[in-house]
């Protein structure tokens, strides 16, 4: 049952606006912290997966080391607050800048690799950096770092203890930024280059696409957006340690969110986050207290089922809807 011809473009415009309105009104309706927290996590993971999607989904370079950029963002802003009393907003930009530089250094060796060799190389980079931070005493080492609590709430300090609403809108902003950048790349010349590389690197090169340069562009954008998320996390949780911002499990989670929704699509990563985050929080809240790991049991089984029945990601479902 597709909408009638003239109605379609109208719907295409109206529905996103309505959705955006609903999202903006959400914190007015739900004043309790937990639903807001849930949405913040969806936005954060949605933004991270969207950033990852630029490199992996469009450019075809499947990174399993994105936690590195997340950690760089978190550590840069936190260290700058502690050592230089710099506002986290500036720290956020600094974190993104360092992540970009880091991504170029990482990109140089790993972009020569293909497929699994590339994926493993990104894992290797992630593990090396995590090990270094754990043994880096000045940056707190394994003990991690506290973000100094400053009260009262202030925008400059990026700390909001009274209400989660501000965090909600900052996270939403991050997500919209990531989506906007993706949308812009999608339609630009660069986006076509990216997809050409993904489909066939040799063919792209023979057509005059500067493959190495385009890959470096992709990872730079992706790393910067991921680092923004890292700073947000640090200012949201107020405590970071290498186990929570640099782990391989985070890199894999980012990838999972995107894959679940559908890689190489604008909305896929967000859809993935909107499903996976409530799924994991919900199963944990309802079933996690028993000590029988029932929550993870169900979570794992669902992931397998989705992979088997909808390997192209959930956005593939849209196609099915349309056909019926």
């Amino acid at each position: 049952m597709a909408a009638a011809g003239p109605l379609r473009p109208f719907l295409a415009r109206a529905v996103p606006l309505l959705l955006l309105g609903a999202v903006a009104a959400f914190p007015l309706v739900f004043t309790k912290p937990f639903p807001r927290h849930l949405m913040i996590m969806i936005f954060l993971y949605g933004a991270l997966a969207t950033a990852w999607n630029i490199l992996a989904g469009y450019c075809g370079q499947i990174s399993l080391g994105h936690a590195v950029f997340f950690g760089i963002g978190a550590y840069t802003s936190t260290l700058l607050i502690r050592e230089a009393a710099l506002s986290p907003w500036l720290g956020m930009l600094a974190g993104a800048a360092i992540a970009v530089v880091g991504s170029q250094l990482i990109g140089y060796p790993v972009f020569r690799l293909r497929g699994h060799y590339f994926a493993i190389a990104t894992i290797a980079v992630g593990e090396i950096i995590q090990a270094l931070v754990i043994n880096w005493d000045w940056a707190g080492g394994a003990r991690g770092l506290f973000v100094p609590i400053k009260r009262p709430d202030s925008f400059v300090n990026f700390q909001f203890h009274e209400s989660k609403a501000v965090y909600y809108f900052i996270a939403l902003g991050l997500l919209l930024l990531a989506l906007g950048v993706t949308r812009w790349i999608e339609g630009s010349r660069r986006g076509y280059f990216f997809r050409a590389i993904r489909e066939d690197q040799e063919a792209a090169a023979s057509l005059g696409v500067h493959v190495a340069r385009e890959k470096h562009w992709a990872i730079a954008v992706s790393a910067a957006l991921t680092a923004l998320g890292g700073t947000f996390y640090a200012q949201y949780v107020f405590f970071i340690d290498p186990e929570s911002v640099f782990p391989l499990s985070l890199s894999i989670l980012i990838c999972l969110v995107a894959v679940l929704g559908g890689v190489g699509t604008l909305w896929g990563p967000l859809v993935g986050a909107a499903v996976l985050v409530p799924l994991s929080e919900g199963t944990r809240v309802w079933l996690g207290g028993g000590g029988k790991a029932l929550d993870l049991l169900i979570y794992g089984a669902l992931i397998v089922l989705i992979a088997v029945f909808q390997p192209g990601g959930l956005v593939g479902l849209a196609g099915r809807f349309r056909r019926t």
Partner: protein
Amino acid sequence: MIRLIAALFVLPVALATTLAAPLPASAQSQEIVIGLAYPMSGPNAQAGIDDKPVFEIAAEIANGTLDLPFPFYQRLKGMPGLKGAKVRLIISDHQTKPELGQAEAERLITQEKVHALVCCWASSVTATASQVAERYGIPFVNAESSSPGLTARGFKWLFRTSPHDEHFTQVMFDFFRDFQKRRGVKIRTLGLTYEDTLFGSDSARVQRELARKYGYEVVVDLAYRQRTTSLQAEVQRLKAANPDVWMPTSYQQDAMLFVRTTRDLDYNPRMIMAQDSGHISSDFVKEVGREAEGTMTRSPFADDLLDKRPIAKAVNDLYAKRAGKNIYDLPARAFTGIMTLLDAINRAGTTDPEAIRKALVATNIPGDQLIMTWDHIRFDATGQNIGVRAIIQQLQGGKYYTVYPFEIATRDVIYPIPAWKDRK
């Protein structure tokens, strides 16, 4: 596509709505709701699972369905201060992840309306969850985390009944001093090995400081990757340096692997002084206890004194019936923590957070009412219990016996530890 996104938006909203829905309020009597965020799944799930029975025991004592014939517990029977209000526990899972600890503390406080939190076992999770309690002004009792920094943050709502690493490590050095005097042996060099997360690096930091203070030489100082696949290199370094005392700080996986590796590589330390945790876990004792003969550890809990101390024995009888094993350090500390909180709530006579906090500040529980061998429970201005006392235990014949302080010891120290080749 758009319809799909719209449809998917409904999912989190629906979940948020159900989670936000108020719980069925109990109409008949007032309730005391206590939130417990513990690792119930993931690599440290055992800690939460082993603690669960003691929380249930504590709740039953308070609800008057369980009788513990000692004055302190009799006073709490049925929570007379709140005219028989019932205690309800909400146990939740944080998977030992700091951000989940934060989210759970917030959810417990705002959705489940808990009146107090007992949380979180792991120091890194306690670090974030206690910030939430501080922000909302909800009493937060920590019974197990040993990172000294937690109570150095000037928090008003955090109370820690457990000793921390400085207490724990101090007793090791007291023991070295007294033991040298008593046996006329010389201890000069120490070898530190520690896992590389918060627990290990904090422990090693204190050990290093105290070694400098008391004039011992640290000849091995090794951090190793937690949950490693092999400890061969670490043991070889120890073997080469051969310190007078080997001081490991490990969670249980690594502690078990260390035992096997020292045997396989024929490393024969003369004295092993472990930092609790892995070396005292029930699985460690059960599975490799005989091979780890002579291992000493600091411990806040003297399980071999169970029979000598009626109160500890009574609690252990209850615990063993539910858990199928004897109570040990961690559940014992958890029990002490939650009972301290229940006592404060009872004295407060209300579930008002500020009143509970004031009652916690005024806590004074005598040592003879505790299952721990502590002097008493009283909190200093930072919220740290100052009545703690750690003891040293040694594995002898597959079981831990208290060997220090010498006046409460049940066995003599075995020294040096017999070499692998001299064992059967």
